[in-house]
């Protein structure tokens, strides 16, 4: 992985598969592979993928996301998860025992929820679930959103970056794969974390970022 030179590709650019299979972000025309998005070419496990540099969140089964309730139905809620589609959460997929029509007593419009993507079907309909340990309604706190493509950088290698942010500022942080981040703690500390995340976003491409974030957190 490290010795691959990362090259930026643009839509319509020919991709040299080098004997690998075409993965995501590639389309084939007359036997030739082309990139369909603006992204970075990576080769992993025999597949060439184009990792997008921008764009909306693409829901994927098993992702933990943070959503905002935008609508309430008698037996489900509708959540905005920063994807092209709104995602419903059914009352049966929650840890609570809910009577028909009582959904509003548990989650209201504007509430923030940590949920998991249960399924995505071929017409891109997304269903959410909260039936897993750790998935819950997020009360209080502060929500910010970043580009979903920057999420891996904010988490860091094996969670190193996020762990440092939590430890050094004494805050609770949840990061959704959809780029929505929930932070709770003292106001000053929240602001510190937001500042650090914006810095990561801006400098995601640089080396030695963890050290600079550490410096930033120590200084402010």
């Amino acid at each position, binding site marked *: *992985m490290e010795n691959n030179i*990362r*090259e*930026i590709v*643009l*839509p*319509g650019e020919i991709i040299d598969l080098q004997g690998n299979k075409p993965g995501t*972000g590639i*389309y084939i*025309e007359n036997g030739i592979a*082309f990139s*369909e*998005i*603006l*992204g*970075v070419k*990576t080769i992993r496990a025999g597949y060439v993928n184009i*990792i*997008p*540099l*921008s*764009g*909306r969140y693409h829901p994927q089964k098993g992702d933990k996301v943070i959503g905002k309730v935008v609508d309430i139905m008698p037996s489900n809620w509708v959540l905005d998860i920063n994807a*092209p*589609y*709104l995602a419903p959460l059914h009352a049966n997929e929650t840890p609570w025992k809910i009577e028909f029509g009582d959904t509003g007593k548990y989650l209201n419009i504007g509430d923030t929820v940590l949920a998991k993507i249960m399924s995505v079907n071929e*017409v*891109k309909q997304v269903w959410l679930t909260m039936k897993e340990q750790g998935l819950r309604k997020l009360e209080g706190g502060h929500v910010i959103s970043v580009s979903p493509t920057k999420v*891996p*950088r904010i*988490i860091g*290698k094996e969670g190193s970056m996020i762990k440092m942010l939590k430890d050094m500022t004494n805050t609770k942080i949840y990061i959704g794969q959809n780029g929505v981040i929930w932070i709770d703690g003292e106001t000053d500390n929240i602001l510190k974390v937001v500042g650090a995340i914006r810095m990561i976003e801006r400098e*995601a*491409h*640089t*080396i030695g970022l963890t050290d600079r974030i550490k410096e930033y957190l120590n200084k402010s």
Partner: protein
Amino acid sequence: MSGMKNDIKLIDESGRRIDGRLYNEMRPIKIEAGVLERADGSAYIEWGNNKIIAAVFGPRETYPKHIQDPSRAVLRARYNMAAFSVDERKKPGPDRRSVELSLVISNALSSVVFLEQYPRTSIDVFIEVLQADAGTRIAGLTAASVALADAGIPMKDLIAGCAVGKIENRIVLDLNKEEDNYGQADMPVAIIPRTQEIVLFQMDGDMDDSEIKEGLKLAIDAAMKIYELEKQALRNKYVKLAGGDFDE
């Protein structure tokens, strides 16, 4: 307004046009990608005296619901000229011309975007002409295609184009305002550079068969140059990321 009676000399004896260009020269073009914070993707283009900004939102939920398509996304482009974009104040709001241009630009962009990847959504493209100086539909389309790529929307290729026209019985590339107003014909062309398929082709004025062929060739050559500028603009925004670390 082509073919207005005039006594302006649009091409001098040495073959130079009023702004000093030769028949096959374009105006200077500057493209910048990602200029807006709120939009999913955006681009700004300066093409001669044209100044145009394009913003892309989506794919997102379609409103009004009845236009949504269960099999593909709906791409809606909106071309709008600012009231201050032309010499005399332009009455704000959509008019016959901008409705037409919105349609031809939407159709051109729809032919490169993989709409079937986002069923039931809409991709909204806003093209705002801040300063107009002839050739805004192609300049707007160019900016819109850069903005779409910047928004991370999957597409076959970018779109590039250029207008050609006829002044003083000669075919020239990329008309400016005076040439457009007092010339004989104006023909905007946009292509998919990789395959050279035409996605937008209009003509206002009179040109014969051989003139159209000559013009088309000029326009396609120019479009290929503009394609390079578009790619450069997108790379400039992200070039720093190239050496970055994308490991999870």
